């Protein structure tokens, strides 16, 4: 036994030694003081960032990579700021895991951390490793950015604690609204008009299902294609929210609505039952996609692209993703229309997004001024000014051929297969925009000349996409941001997931006729009993607290 214990002791000692080797002192940055000379840092400084890597973010050309590409080079050359990714995550949940692991304190957190999850936001604040930035915003945020942030005060609510601000929204901007994409050739063939209310909508999808719009003599088409896998309000593509809103007005499934200072949950509001009854009826008649409950938002597009479905809903750019139907099916043509009106004649509502996550900063990060300098430059592309008048990088997302700016990557001087999503290479993850719901498209449609980068880019889009954005801009009053954007409340942490699952299951079962329509009343009752009442109270408490302290004034954003 002596030998054994000796071996174990040696092993432990060795492990200890190895561990000792690893803990090198990372040393604090800024050993030499960098100064800003003519808009450039000398010597150059490095800002470390974390990044969530999504599907399109990994695409680089010319042998470039995450930490060495056209944008990092630009920053180094023009601003003396080197952006380096030190924490990289895969999809949404892996990225959150990595940030959480980062909070364990084994290594330095990056200087700038985009965070996309409200629960994680809260954990980061609680950990005490995030910088409080009220003063920094006041002091360093450039004026044109202040103007933007002023418009979206609610984006600060998730990051405010005790009147202190621990983060800021990433490129806040009211996103574009959804439009209805319809197979125009089908409408024409059956002598139909685009529907504007629920009755007309029903007539059209019935005809798309029964009257053989593709003329192949088979009953293999249907009317309305949408996704129900993750709830009935995806907020961006393959939505069915228009049908719900036709009956519930501003109460949207899965979202919180503020009315007279009170927050209520959309899925339990009056009218949902009627909406479900309609969908149930349509489903049984075959007007809807059969597998709607198993299709996630992006998968639900396939039927439309194949030429099987007649109507799909999504943001205007969705046309770019489904226009393949015009390749797959001879004679197919897709047009964009506004979503239908409610039964009382009002417009139907949609949920809107105000920001794409939140920036948080390392407590030890001392270069907020540099961060804002860089961030402000990135906005040049949104304003169509400065270095990024036309786009981020010539030969990547635009090119100048024979003095003509082109956004068609096949016509570049060095033609490439597709435009590079340069915005995906940045720490904003997407290209910042101030175009909101599509103002540039609206202006173009009303005769504005495409004389700056933003307008030129919009002008280069497909006609249907352009039509869609115009519709989106004209109807921008139907966009409702979620009234609750705080961290999950106490009861939410224990029972929200359960309630959500029950909700989606129940809605689906009713639409599939696996449960009687009356099951909805039962669901509402149970929803309140199983935590809904408490959650509503807590959410309202949160709302009162969130609007109590005027942090906007403290940040100089008033």
């Amino acid at each position, binding site marked *: 036994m002596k030998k054994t214990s000796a071996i174990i002791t040696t092993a432990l000692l060795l492990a200890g030694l190895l561990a000792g080797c*690893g803990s090198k002192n990372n040393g604090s940055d800024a050993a030499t003081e960098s100064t800003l000379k003519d808009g450039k840092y000398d010597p150059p400084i490095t800002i470390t960032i974390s990044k969530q890597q999504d599907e399109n973010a990994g695409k680089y050309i010319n042998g470039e990579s995450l930490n060495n590409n056209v944008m990092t080079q630009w920053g180094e050359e023009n601003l003396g700021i080197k952006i380096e990714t030190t924490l990289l995550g895969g999809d949404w949940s892996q990225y959150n895991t990595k940030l959480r692991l980062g909070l364990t304190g084994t290594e330095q957190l990056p200087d700038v951390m985009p965070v996309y999850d409200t629960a994680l936001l809260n954990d980061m604040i609680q950990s005490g490793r995030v910088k409080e930035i009220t003063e920094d915003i006041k002091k360093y945020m450039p004026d044109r950015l202040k103007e933007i942030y002023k418009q979206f005060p609610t984006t600060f609510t998730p990051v405010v604690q005790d009147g202190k601000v621990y983060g800021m929204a990433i490129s806040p901007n009211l996103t574009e609204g959804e439009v209805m994409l319809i197979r125009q050739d089908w409408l024409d063939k059956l002598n139909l008009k685009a529907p504007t209310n629920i009755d007309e909508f029903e007539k059209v999808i019935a005809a798309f299902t029964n009257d053989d719009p593709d003329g192949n003599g088979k009953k293999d088409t249907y009317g309305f294609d949408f996704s129900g896998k*993750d709830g009935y309000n995806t907020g961006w593509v393959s939505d069915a929210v228009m049908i719900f809103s036709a009956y519930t007005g501003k109460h949207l499934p899965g979202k919180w609505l503020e009315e007279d200072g009170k927050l209520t949950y959309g899925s339990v509001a009056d009218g949902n039952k009627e909406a479900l009854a309609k969908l149930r009826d349509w489903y049984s008649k075959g007007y809807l996609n059969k597998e709607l409950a198993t299709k996630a938002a992006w998968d639900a597009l396939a039927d439309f692209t194949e030429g099987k479905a007649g109507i799909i809903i999504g943001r205007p750019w969705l046309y770019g993703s489904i226009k393949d139907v015009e390749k797959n099916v001879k004679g197919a043509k897709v047009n964009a229309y506004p979503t239908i009106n409610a039964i009382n004649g009002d417009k139907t509502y949609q949920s809107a997004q105000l920001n794409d996550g939140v920036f948080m900063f390392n407590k030890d990060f001392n270069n907020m001024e540099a961060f804002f300098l860089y961030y402000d430059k990135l906005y040049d592309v949104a304003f169509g000014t400065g270095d990024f008048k036309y786009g981020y990088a010539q030969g990547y997302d635009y090119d100048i051929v024979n003095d003509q700016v082109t956004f068609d990557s096949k016509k570049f001087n060095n033609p490439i297969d597709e435009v590079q999503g340069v915005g995906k290479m940045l720490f904003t993850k997407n290209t910042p925009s101030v175009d909101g719901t599509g103002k540039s498209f609206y202006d173009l449609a009303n005769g504005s000349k495409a004389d700056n980068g933003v307008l030129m880019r919009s002008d280069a889009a497909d006609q249907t996409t352009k039509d869609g954005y115009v519709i989106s801009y004209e109807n921008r009053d139907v966009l409702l941001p979620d009234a609750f954007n705080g961290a999950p409340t106490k009861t939410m942490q224990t029972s929200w997931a359960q309630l959500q699952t029950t909700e989606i299951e129940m809605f689906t079962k009713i639409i599939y006729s696996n449960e009687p329509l009356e099951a909805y009343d039962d669901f509402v009752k149970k929803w309140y009993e199983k935590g809904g009442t408490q959650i509503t109270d807590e959410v309202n408490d949160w709302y009162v607290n969130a609007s109590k302290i005027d942090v906007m004034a403290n940040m100089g954003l008033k």
Partner: protein
Amino acid sequence: MYHKSKGYKIFSFFNYIFLILIALTCLLPLLHLLAQSFSSKAAVNGDLVSFWPVDFNTESYAKTFNNSNFTGSMLISVIRTVLGTLISMFVITTAGYALSKDFRGRNALMWIFVFTMLFSGGLIPSYILVSSLGLKNTIWALVLPGAFGAYNMILLMNFFKTIPKALEEAAFIDGASFFGIFWRIYLPLSLPGLATVGLFIMVGHWNSWFDGILYMSDTTQYPLASFLQTIVVQGSAQNMALSPSEAAVMSEQSIKAAQIFISTLPIILVYPFLQRFFVKGIVLGAVKE
């Protein structure tokens, strides 16, 4: 004769059908993927492809091999698999050999190893360990933490135990050392076991993606499986405003199909050569002398 009886014939008929069905469920998805990879983007997005390419083209493969991230990741995966398998095999064969003998403290050691099969430290402690050892962003973070697998070690240990002691004694008399016996007698005789366990480890290394994402902070250092994970997983939650040009390139299923197919190919190719060892390979001490 039993195998000529009617009941047996009926049984084998259904048995064959059943086995063919199982084989098809494994084969068809792969065929579907192959067909998708050779089809045009439009056809794939429209769900028009089943088991035969539509609008045959090889563009996806050209694009995949022109993508330096893909080929770089592939190289890392190959290095990782070779290095990881060699290290693992070295560690578990030596441990298995030693533990197949009787010596003092053997049971205690064995207990320590088995303990790791039942309990693990969990994600956070492993992460802290790896990063404080300074392994992050190196290939060692991928090959060292999983180098010793108790399960594989026990498999090999049992294999070593089945080799007659007399062989070892004869070698001792001829003057061989412990290590000589291990190298010249035990390893060659356990080839089936080594091949089987080696394949387990290889497949494990080739397919594992989470550690790559966890310990690497640059996509160019991702092994292939991690790279594919980021490419194949689609944005499921809400997406912020995409520009029309960005939306048009979303979800290129045919390229994904090509990448997945290429990435499974090496392992599929290795299988037939190791398959013959399988039957003899996995014996968990069920047969006693």
